[in-house]
């Protein structure tokens, strides 16, 4: 366990301590700025509705996945590109343990950054509407969504150097267009799974979310279970790939 913690600690240090983190923090604060401008000119009811149909998808569908993409793909991808992976791979540690440590680190780093943006957005919402009880649901949904995206992008980052381009294409086409247009596949949309966790906790204003969820049933435990299964699958696949593929290019 000490080894897993050591990998996770150094990975978080490497991911969060870089200049790109500043850009991701700023990205995470964009919804808060937009909500502030909107809240100053509209009624509480209109702000609440805008938060659910405008801000929630902006956070869960844009800033969270982009943060998870950049950091998730970098957690193992950077080690491979910079060839530092030999330093951890040539140690008596199971490949799955390395993959799990990397996933945990990428999730924590992404959640620290995206969660900060979500927290500030939640505070702005509370400040403009006087309703503070949305914040826990919003943060839990952010955490669940982050884990789902990091699980996917870590594998992509290990496989290819073009993970960011592929990931952006996936976000735009699959998450942005296909799963919104076809309700049969909407349950595979990771940000909608995150939104369903929010809807499972924050039952007030559920009608506002029906279109967004596009057929995904509200429920925090169901959403959590889905992303945990995805994370375990990601660890297993990454572990297999680490054994089966060349670790340095």
């Amino acid at each position, binding site marked *: 366990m000490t080894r897993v913690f050591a990998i996770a600690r150094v990975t978080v240090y490497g991911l969060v301590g870089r200049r790109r983190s500043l850009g991701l923090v700023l990205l995470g604060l964009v919804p808060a700025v937009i909500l502030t401008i909107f809240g100053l000119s509209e009624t509480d009811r209109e702000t609440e509705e805008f938060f659910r149909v405008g801000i929630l998808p902006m956070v869960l569908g844009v800033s969270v996945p982009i943060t998870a993409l950049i950091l998730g793909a970098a957690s193992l991808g950077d080690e491979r590109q910079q060839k530092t992976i030999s330093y951890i791979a040539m140690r*008596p540690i199971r490949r799955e343990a390395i993959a799990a440590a990397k996933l945990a680190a990428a999730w924590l780093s992404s959640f620290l950054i995206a969660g900060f943006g979500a927290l500030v957005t939640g505070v702005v919402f509370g400040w403009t509407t006087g309703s503070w009880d949305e914040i826990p649901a919003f943060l839990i949904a952010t955490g669940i969504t982050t884990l789902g995206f990091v699980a996917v992008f870590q594998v992509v980052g290990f496989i290819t150097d073009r993970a960011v381009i592929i990931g952006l294409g996936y976000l735009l086409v699959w998450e942005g267009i296909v799963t919104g247009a076809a309700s049969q596949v909407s349950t595979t949309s990771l940000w909608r799974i995150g939104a369903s966790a929010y809807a499972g906790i924050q039952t007030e204003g559920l009608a506002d979310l029906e279109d967004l969820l596009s057929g995904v049933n509200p429920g925090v435990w169901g959403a959590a279970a889905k992303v945990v299964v995805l994370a375990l699958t990601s660890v297993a696949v990454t572990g297999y790939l680490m054994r089966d593929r*060349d670790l340095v290019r």
Partner: protein
Amino acid sequence: MTTSPAFVSNPTVEVTELSKWFGQKVAVSNLSCSFGPGITGLLGPNGAGKTTLLRMLAGLTQPSRGQLTVLDTDPRRDVMVFQKVGLVPEDDAVYEFLTGRQYVEYGAQLAGVRNPAQAATHAIGAVGMDDAAGRRIEGYSKGMRQRIKVAGALVNDPEILYLDEPLNGADPLQRVRLIELFHSLANEGRTLIVSSHVLAEVEKMATRIIAMVDGRLAAAGDPSAIRAAFTDIPYRVRIDADTPRKLGSALLNHSVIRSVEVLDDILHVQTRDLGDLGRLLPTLARDLDVRLTMVQPEDLSLESVFRYLVHGK
């Protein structure tokens, strides 16, 4: 098997008909050899397949064909073997954002060393990096990076150490210290495999050399045998003179000359001894009243020497 100089009697690392290719490019081709305690130099020009071989031995790259064992184990299948193995990669594979001490201590933690801080202090001391260990690696010179990588590989007290061009970037004093360190590790009964493209460098370290070219075994043996093989190679020399044919005809009468060729009024000769040719030419030119304008060895690159060892041409 042990009669061939490519094999040792008490191997810790064994390679059998090992090949690795990347698409159409063959990096290692049907290589069989073994390594045991002491320092074995892995010698070859750039692109010979040395790094690919070390990466396969380190379990970082999957062989395309063949087998290898490290301490009787396949490193791709049993990661526990890495308790006894260390690698100093050629690449600048260090965490820039860590200090030297953090980097080495991290390696100790990953290796499951009982007291990581103490092990790190010991390894850092062994490479003479005590003073700089508290600084971030991003500020290190190339030589310092090399030394901290060596410390990171030594921190788990490995039985087997792979060193890929370990003296790159090190200044002369650092080279001497690192070579002394490698000798002391070898004297303790460890297996060190040191890759380099510089024969003189390998000669200072290794008691045995495996020479590779184009992914294949070119020669194996002790350094004196390899050096003898090198000096037996015919050299090609370009000679510019005002009457090249006259000089060429005269040179053919001397045993030091293997062949003579005149192309575009430029004389090309092959000799097995550059020194003898150097002594013969001025005398002959004076006697024949031939004016020499340039004498230049051709094709003296390490690649050509290795290629001769493999292909005989």
